């Protein structure tokens, strides 16, 4: 028996054999062909097929992982459609009378060699992209199965150095019990994806992970970040019981996922989903979302070369809102800054983009960007229960400006004879510490607050969540964050407004009792966590959670808070 420790990246227990994920090397045979035209046709079919594959991966990546990873696939698609590249392959088939695979290999190597010979490491690294694309087309030509993912034939725990988005997307998720990754932090995209899929995951397990033999028996404890290799009987029995009780709990939770939630003492709590695509909306309904607490709209803006029009946005928002019928959908207006690459926006590069012109700050500075979105939202509100939420708000003046712009847009729409809502509920994200502190003063300008704990935590703790060296400091369960949550909820209630949370904390089992106790009205989270969150809320009374919250706020750090809640509710995960 051996034990490896990493960072708990996604809750849950998995017991099963190890599956070592490796990329497959394809062997390419070289032979003479008679019918060159047929060979060229075979190539063109394969290129088309590869392009379709990449296109669907691109869209999936855009929805699941965001722009940066998606952009890689867009780059790959451009390579597949490249006239010079295709001409070179054709020329080799024509003049050397060789098969498509060999011609493709030669042409790819020619380009890759030029790049590999460059001084600049950015260009050298692109040689790998060419090999990746060539590999994909070769596999299609040879009709061999995808990548290492194809060898996954029984339910297994996937072990890898790191997984690229195309790796994770090609894995048959019905056979994946969990992920163990040698590299990466809790915000790496494998971790994010695992949480979205509701699969347990540990990241940052180190190089030792890769010494595990294919097929070894494993226990993956995603709650604690422990991986046990070749477990003894005692561990096996313990974890099997835990796993079984979690499984039953999840099953039971799924059965009740569509029902509304009341605490044991009868307080109605709203559980909504965070989504960022049309597909995400449908998925969220399946998991029992009672609306959308956070509709990320960035996906509409990223990965394209011109600004989306008002009509385009109107169609997409309406489609999403219709999925939820009369349940509320909170649209967060565009939340990007200088760290994002949006060519048509011409965003200046900033020394510190997370403290720069982003979110509402950017939108207020660019009415041409902002107005089409506001108008699209107002038009959807004419028929659907859509609300608006502004991100990265810092003070009252900004809220007033945004609301004034919203009113201007409404007047414009009336002039344009478009159906428009009389009123749209308008709230703000609480991410900037100043807003949390001043919430009592801002409450009369808004209809609701939604606390974005991910950004709030890193701003309050002055710790970058993506920097492994300091990310533990930015844990949202820190009493410093919880105290601010308390301030915001109090301020909202004192003014007859409501307060929700759309940060990852809202779906964290250990946080739910505290957040309930602090009086949070709405919990918005990744869809797969909804059923369990609902069950946890049902099992609690407000009175007991108020005691828990009060005590948690007096503890010294996030670790202490976690230990305290676990001690209070030993069965919270299982």
């Amino acid at each position, binding site marked *: 028996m051996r034990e490896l420790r990493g960072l708990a990246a996604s809750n849950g227990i998995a017991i099963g054999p190890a599956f070592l994920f490796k990329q497959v090397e394809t062997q390419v045979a070289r032979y003479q062909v008679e019918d060159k035209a047929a060979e060229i046709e075979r190539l063109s079919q394969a290129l088309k097929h590869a392009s379709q594959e990449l296109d669907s991966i691109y869209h999936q990546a855009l929805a699941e992982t965001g722009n940066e990873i998606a*952009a*890689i696939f*867009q*780059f790959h698609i*451009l*390579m597949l459609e*490249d*006239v*010079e*590249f295709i001409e070179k392959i054709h020329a080799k088939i024509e003049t050397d009378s060789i098969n498509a695979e060999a011609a493709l290999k030669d042409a790819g190597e020619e*380009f890759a060699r*030029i*790049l590999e010979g*460059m001084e*600049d490491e*950015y*260009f050298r690294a*692109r040689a790998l*992209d*060419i090999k990746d694309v060539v590999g994909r087309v070769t596999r299609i030509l040879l009709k061999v199965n995808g990548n290492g993912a194809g060898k996954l034939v029984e339910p297994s725990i996937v072990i890898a150095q790191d997984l690229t988005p195309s790796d994770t997307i090609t894995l048959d998720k019905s056979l994946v019990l969990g992920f163990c990754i040698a590299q990466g932090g809790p915000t790496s995209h494998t971790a994010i994806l695992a949480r979205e899929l509701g699969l347990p995951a540990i990241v940052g397990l180190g190089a030792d992970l890769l010494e595990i033999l294919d097929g070894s028996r494993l226990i993956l404890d995603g709650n604690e970040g422990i991986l046990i290799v070749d477990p003894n009987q005692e561990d096996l029995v313990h974890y099997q019981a835990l796993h079984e009780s979690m499984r039953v709990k999840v099953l039971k939770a799924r059965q009740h996922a569509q029902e509304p939630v009341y605490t044991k003492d009868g307080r109605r709590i709203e559980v909504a989903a965070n989504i960022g695509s049309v597909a995400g909306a449908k998925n969220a309904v399946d998991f029992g979302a009672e609306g959308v607490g956070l509709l990320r709209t960035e996906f509409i803006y990223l990965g394209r*070369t011109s600004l989306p029009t008002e009509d385009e946005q109107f169609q997409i928002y309406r489609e999403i809102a219709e999925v939820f019928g009369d349940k509320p959908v909170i649209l967060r207006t565009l939340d990007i800054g*200088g760290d994002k*690459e*949006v*060519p*048509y*926006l*011409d*965003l*200046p*590069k*900033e020394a510190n983009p997370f403290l720069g012109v982003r979110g509402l700050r950017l939108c207020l500075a660019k009415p041409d960007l902002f107005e089409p979105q506001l108008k699209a939202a107002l038009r959807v509100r004419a028929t659907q229960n859509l609300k608006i939420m502004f991100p990265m708000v810092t003070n009252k003046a900004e809220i007033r400006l945004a609301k004034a712009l919203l009113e201007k847009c409404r007047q414009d729409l009336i002039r344009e004879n478009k159906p428009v809502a009389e009123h749209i509920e308008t709230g703000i994200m609480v991410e900037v510490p100043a807003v949390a502190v001043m919430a009592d003063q801002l409450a009369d300008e808004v209809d609701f607050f939604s606390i974005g704990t991910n950004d709030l935590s890193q701003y309050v703790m002055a710790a970058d969540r993506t920097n492994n060296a300091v990310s533990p400091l930015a844990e949202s369960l820190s009493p410093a964050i919880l105290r601010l949550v308390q301030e915001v909820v109090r301020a909202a209630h004192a003014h007859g407004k409501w307060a929700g949370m759309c940060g990852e904390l809202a779906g964290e089992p250990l946080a739910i009792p505290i957040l309930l106790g602090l009086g949070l009205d709405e919990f918005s989270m990744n869809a797969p966590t909804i059923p369990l969150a609902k069950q946890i809320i049902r099992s609690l009374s407000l009175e007991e959670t108020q005691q828990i919250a009060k005590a948690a706020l007096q503890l010294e750090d996030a670790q202490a808070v976690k230990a305290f809640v676990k001690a209070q509710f030993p069965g919270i995960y299982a």
Partner: protein
Amino acid sequence: MAEITLTVKHEVGLHARPASLFVQKAKQYKADIRVKYGDTVGNAKSIMSMLTLGVNQGAIITIYAQGEDEDQAIVGLSELVESNFGEAV
């Protein structure tokens, strides 16, 4: 034939993302568009061709366009390069 000579300010040059944007933009025009860097000339509508030019930060390139929308092509592409591909320097 229209042409313009520019300096690429992007910190990694015409690398994956900027090159993708450049090629995508170039493909919007009917004109035949070429980019010259040093002694090498590449096809602006080919990502492979643009990458293998190895245009890095500070490189001076010349864009040539020939065809009915050659002027628009030069304006559009030079704006993209001048705007530093949507990132500022």
